[in-house]
């Protein structure tokens, strides 16, 4: 049979340019040539343009003196530090605002997302209103609003608002009492560390025991006791070795306390509120994705609403929620680059803004900045793929 078929349709009758393999190779070679030509053209133009403009190339600028100040630094930095140091300051500022923003956005987002599903009409409508308004306004507009119309409109230094508890608020920022550890606080820190480790060990043991015997252990209570109550007891025994440095309003300045610059506050506020609206939708979709039959089946087995939520609904909803939630976290991190519009010294503002303007080395500076964000994004999506393959529904 097969020989007959071959004889009936001789391959020679197909011209070589209609052979899918030949075509595919031809297309790919053409594409590679086009890309190579583009890259070559761009590179040669760049070299020529850079030479004409007398701009140095290479990463030699990394160790040159930066010569500018940065308003918020997590590591020691002054205007005689290098550009490389400025890069790290910017990167740490980006990571700080992103990490705090993720925490706040998650808390707010989960509250709003659950509120949207509330049976209370007023609560669900209020949550819906929040989501619709925030999602449909550009983030940049919201950041400018918080910064220029709210924080910059606060009273000035002389009329600072004093909030009970030692907070001082004015248009130069937010000043919190700074906790200062006294002698003996090290014991509390050690106990805390021990508590965390013990809680992890305990929950591991409890899970193993439940898998083997079915007996449940009060993991939450014991963990709380180990992590919160134990250090607290040590703290009290040690004679409360913690004092607060309260901000003092002087005539021209505020001394002491922990200063939060308004740029940081506006960015954190704007990012958290904006991303929370998206997280709320993710959470709502995730909870709705768990079929009602699961809840009913759980009730019919005699489980109470609390354990039903904790053991049946939430684990299944999390499977749906976590992948889009991670992409919202990435969005938040990338959106923190809008700091440049309100002057918060994040990576883009410090590096792509000031350093680029001073050195003029656009290619190197933009490439480094992009490489940082790419590293964050790609490593997160790599971890996400691992998580997804572990959490995938195992079917027969």
């Amino acid at each position: 049979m097969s020989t007959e078929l071959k004889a009936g349709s001789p391959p020679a009758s197909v011209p070589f340019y209609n052979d899918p393999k030949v075509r595919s190779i031809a297309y790919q070679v053409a594409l590679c040539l086009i890309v190579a030509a583009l890259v070559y053209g761009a590179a040669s133009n760049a070299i020529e343009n850079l030479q004409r403009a007398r701009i140095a190339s290479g990463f030699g600028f990394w160790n040159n003196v930066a010569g500018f100040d940065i308003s918020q630094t997590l590591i020691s930095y002054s205007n005689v530090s290098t550009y490389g140091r400025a890069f790290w300051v910017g990167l740490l500022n980006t990571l700080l605002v992103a990490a705090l923003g993720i925490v706040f956005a998650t808390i707010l987002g989960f509250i709003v997302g659950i509120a949207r599903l509330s049976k209370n009409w007023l609560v669900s409508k209020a949550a819906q209103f929040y989501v619709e308004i925030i999602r449909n306004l550009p983030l940049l507009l919201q950041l400018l609003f918080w910064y220029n119309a709210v924080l910059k409109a606060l009273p000035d230094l002389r009329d600072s608002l004093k909030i009970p508890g030692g907070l001082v608020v004015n248009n130069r920022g937010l000043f919190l009492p700074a906790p200062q550890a006294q002698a003996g606080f090290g014991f509390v820190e050690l106990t805390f560390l021990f508590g965390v480790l013990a809680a992890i060990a305990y929950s591991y043991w409890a899970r193993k025991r439940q898998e083997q015997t079915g007996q449940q252990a009060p993991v939450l209570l014991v963990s709380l006791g180990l992590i919160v109550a134990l250090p607290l007891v040590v703290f009290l025994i040690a004679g409360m070795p913690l004092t607060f440095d309260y901000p003092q309003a002087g005539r021209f300045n505020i001394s002491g306390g922990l200063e939060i610059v308004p740029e940081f506050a506006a960015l954190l506020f704007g990012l958290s509120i904006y991303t929370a609206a998206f997280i709320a939708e993710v959470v709502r979709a995730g909870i709705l994705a768990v079929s009602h039959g699961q809840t009913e089946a759980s009730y019919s087995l005699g489980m109470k609403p609390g354990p039903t939520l904790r053991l049946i609904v939430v684990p299944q909803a999390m499977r749906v929620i976590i992948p889009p939630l991670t992409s919202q976290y990435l969005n938040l991190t990338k959106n923190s680059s809008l700091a440049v519009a309100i002057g918060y010294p994040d990576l883009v503002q410090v590096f792509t803004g000031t350093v680029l303007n001073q050195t003029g080395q656009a290619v190197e500076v933009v490439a480094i900045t992009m490489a940082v964000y790419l590293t964050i994004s790609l490593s997160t999506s790599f971890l996400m793929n691992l998580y997804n393959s572990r959490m995938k529904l195992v079917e027969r």
Partner: protein
Amino acid sequence: MTMSEGDLAVTQINFVRRETLPAQPPPASMTGAVGWLRENLFSTPFNIGLTVLISLLILWIVPDLLRFLIFDAVWSGADREACLITAQRPVVGACWPFAFERLPYFIYGSYPISERWRVDVFFVILAVAIVWLLWLNAPRRDLAVVYAFIFTPIASFILLRGWPLIGLERVDTVLWGGVLVTIVVSAVGIVISLPLGILLALGRRSTMPAVKLFSVMFIEFVRGVPLVTVLFMASVMLPLFVPENLSPDKLLRALIGIAMFASAYMAEVVRAGLAAIPKGQYEGAQAVGLGYWQMMRLIILPQALKITIPNIVNTYIGLFKDTTLVFIVGIFDLLRTVEVSRIDPKWAAPSTSPTGYAVAAVFYLICCYGMSRYAQATEKRLAKADRR
């Protein structure tokens, strides 16, 4: 005490109902407004607490907002004097005369006043295109596609940029601004990102390794970095990569950045749609002898795009909001015209900034909310078609 239970029953029961009574209405507390309130707002103590809390929140925000926008607002005046805090008027709401005076600037930017009719004509051409495309019962919708995707871009370019040959003075793009730029940037992003995104998505699913590699590299690269850095790249690196005499102008550079960014996101949306098409559709198309492009054009893409319409519109909403970022590379879009106006000393007053932002917020809210309603309606309409 001798009587048994049975005797007692017989002697005591002297009435047995034989007919069914008509159904009673439910108790007043379960129906109507009261019942609704009980069920929806006051069902449990926790719910009562939430209701009170939210009501207090609303009572705290809404009156203040209304006072600022309407009751305490200043409605007429020539300059900042009208909006300052004085002894007679200790509380000042929105400074509307500022918005009224600056409205032309918010819409046209610095476009020459004598030529602004051209922008108006552009808005009309665009509005006709949108209505014709989206209105399902409109006549000759086949012509609408030609009109929207061929006539509109060419006519808009000639109108806005100018063509001295036919008597339209050239207007440099640095003079463009406000709503005009916002709409031009988002329209270009919208029109370019769909075809490019489809090509990239097809490339990513291609069996040719080189095509796939370049598509994946482009998509992952652009999606992995913030739009701000893409715009910086377009505005500071692009001029280096082309010969000096060909250096594109500022607006065009921003447009290239936006188009690249939007295409990568669109590619992922289209890819999700392509992945949702069952394999049988591909095999069926190949079995009847269709080539790759025929199969895509006639079988796969119509189905894939149909199910992705809501996501495509959502991407457009994101793109529309993201156009505000051209602000950072120095383009005068709506937000930047507001930003420039609010620090104008002529109108320096405490409420000028919030007023300016309120104007911008209303514009973005109307546009984005409109688009998201359209996406929801489409989703419903398409779901109807699939119901058996």
